[in-house]
């Protein structure tokens, strides 16, 4: 079921200046950490893999899940779970509404799955809450649950721990990595925090040097 995420000879440049040149394979349950200072093209790489690259960039190369090429698919068909620094919980929906947004339509027992997901993260009974009333850590966990409920094939993490307090950061980090490993998701992590790379435990690529 779980397939590796392959970045095949990916090159991204803007105005003739090359930002990214990467060839990598991320096995199911493994994390590849991409590091580099701001402006080095880390987020651009994520945008390319997720399908949001701005048209001002020139990109070549392929993204594959197992044997299937996804880089020709529109973003919504790629099944790349995305996490940003901010939890980005939709402010007009309840916590459950956010999670239901993640569950694919046609899935059986959608509400039950949402309840179970909340319970698994120690958030029982939070469903009807306004996401704005949750603590930072709770919001981060809901954001990850939402991604997992959408049944992604890979995870793309854009400095997801950067805005968390020091003590919370370790907790959320292990929450995310542990879930990704358990679900066998290949994970691409972009960060400038070396501690993230250490916690991820996979190989590390540095851009912009």
């Amino acid at each position, binding site marked *: 079921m779980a397939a590796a995420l392959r970045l095949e000879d990916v090159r991204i440049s803007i105005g003739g200046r090359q930002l990214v040149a990467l060839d990598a394979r991320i096995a199911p349950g493994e994390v590849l950490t991409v590091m580099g200072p701001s402006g080095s093209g880390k987020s651009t790489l994520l945008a390319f893999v997720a399908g949001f690259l701005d*048209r001002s960039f020139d990109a070549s190369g392929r993204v594959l899940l197992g044997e299937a090429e996804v880089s020709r698919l529109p973003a919504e068909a790629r099944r790349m779970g995305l996490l940003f620094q*901010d939890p*980005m919980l939709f402010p*007009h929906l309840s916590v459950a509404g956010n999670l239901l947004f*993640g569950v694919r339509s046609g899935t059986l027992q959608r509400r039950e799955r949402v309840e179970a997901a909340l319970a698994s993260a120690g958030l029982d009974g939070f469903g009807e809450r*306004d996401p*704005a009333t949750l603590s930072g850590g709770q919001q981060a966990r809901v954001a990850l649950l939402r991604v997992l409920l959408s049944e992604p094939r890979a995870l793309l993490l854009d400095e997801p721990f950067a805005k968390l307090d020091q003590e919370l950061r370790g907790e959320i980090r292990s929450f995310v990595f542990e879930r990704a490993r358990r679900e066998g998701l290949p994970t691409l992590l972009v960060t400038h925090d070396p501690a993230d790379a250490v916690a991820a435990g996979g190989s590390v690529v540095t851009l912009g040097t």
Partner: protein
Amino acid sequence: MADGARRNRSSVAIIVRPPRLSDRLLAAAPAVAVGLLCLPILAGLAGVVLPSLGYLPALGGTTVSLEPWRQLLAEPGLQRSVLVSLFSGLTTGAVALVIVFLFLAGAADTRADRLMRRAISPLLSVPHAAAAFGFAFLIAPSGLFVRLLSPWATGWQRPPDLLIVNDPWGLAMMAGLVQKEIPFLLLMCLSALPQIDAARRMAVSRSLGYRPVAAWLKTVAPALYPLVRLPVYAVIAYSSSVVDVALILGPSNPAPLSVAVVKWLSDPDLSRRYVASAGALLQLGVTVAALVIWRMAELAIARATRPWLENGSRSLADRGLALVGRLGVGAAVLASALGLASLAVWSIAGLWRFPDLLPRSFTLERWGQASTLAGPLAATVLIGLVSTAVSMSTVVAALENELRRGRSAGPRALQILYLPLVVPPVAFLFGLVIAAETTGLRPGFWPIVLGHIVFVLPYVYLSLAEAYRRLDPRWSMIAASLGASPDSTFLRVRLPMLLSPCLTAFAVGFAVSVGQYLATQLLGAGRVATLTTEAVALSTGGDRRVIGVLALAQSLLPAVMFAVAVGVPRLIWRNRRLMRGRA
């Protein structure tokens, strides 16, 4: 090797999706918007060119000549009409802009300042005609000001025989326009200020020892002006060609050019339409001339003030200038509020003798004549809702198209948007009537709606575009990565998150439609009565109580819509803290 290179090149395209119907519909939206704005204006201008040269087969004019222009130039008082129109455009623009700039330059975070800022949005929604009536009720010889001072200060026992309203040089008209345009320019400036990082400019220059007003005028004003230039041009064009305000407050014999043109073209003698056509083009010329003069003044001022910007002087009659700005904006706000109050009092006044400050008795009789009010009210609401709904759908589709293609409309789009705000309505609406007649389109509801859209759409766009573009793109990315299609993301994420600005834009558009006089009058051939046309029709010698009712009802309609725009999101998002903070 060669194979690999080809494959790489072919995979450059990132999002390959068979074009959906919705995408194709959206792609047409910008063209539809441009068409809705430009076609009526161009057709209208074209529609008056031939008649102004004597060619109008429908009236038997089949030869081309300069006779209409000769007749126009021979019209008594034409020179005065032209001068008043020109002068009104330039004066209103200059006075309103100077007051707004001085107010912002001297702005402190005092209570009075905050109150004034909060007052401008509601005042902006008051239709021009209602504001003009309110102003007339204030300054007329039997108006509130004279009553306040009589008889103890003036000794007047009866209204003085003075031509305050409708004075021959249009000063009352200009004052009324300044009062109405100050809130507009102030709002435009306030929304442009964050773009130029005004707070930091002020911090830098004040730390260099500049007093606040000098600091603002030297470092903020030069950057701010280019951002509000188009709104300023709109004010000048509007004030040089306005019809309803001129009918209420302006001189009558000779009247400002725009009013004279309307008089000629509604003359029972149809042959006057040739002169009217020439007059419509002359009006276009007068407005263009006002803008050209203004532009030259801009350049001259930029040149003349350059040495002053760099001369290092750190203060500039700070207190005096700040006071001028504050008094100006304060007077505009106060006059508008008192004007509305006057309308309200007149609408329920029973016996009201001069110089009593308030009526002796009150009556709801005029409001009770609902049957006469109901028709115009229904027409106003219906026209407003339909024209705003069409404008709104077009604007949202255009913005959504822009977002999906990742390309934003350039400065040219903004110029097209301002076209209807700069071309005088008299100049193209009459031509539009002629053009419609030749294509067999009968005057009535739909031509009126199309005419209103020309004015409503730009304001809807200006009011919504910023909020649409400012929405964090990551919301759409998150939704797509969770598997939502672009259409689904629009319906389930973008539209709900932008509910509040959408409703505000709708209310703005509705207010613009409610305020339209000339488009309704001309494109409905005078047969469709709205609150505005009914009120303006009473401007000369009408019953003040009826005017009070009509003008107040006209002001209440947009107010109701703005209340909905504020109230509905509050109700829907009462349990969503972050949504309540969204403007």
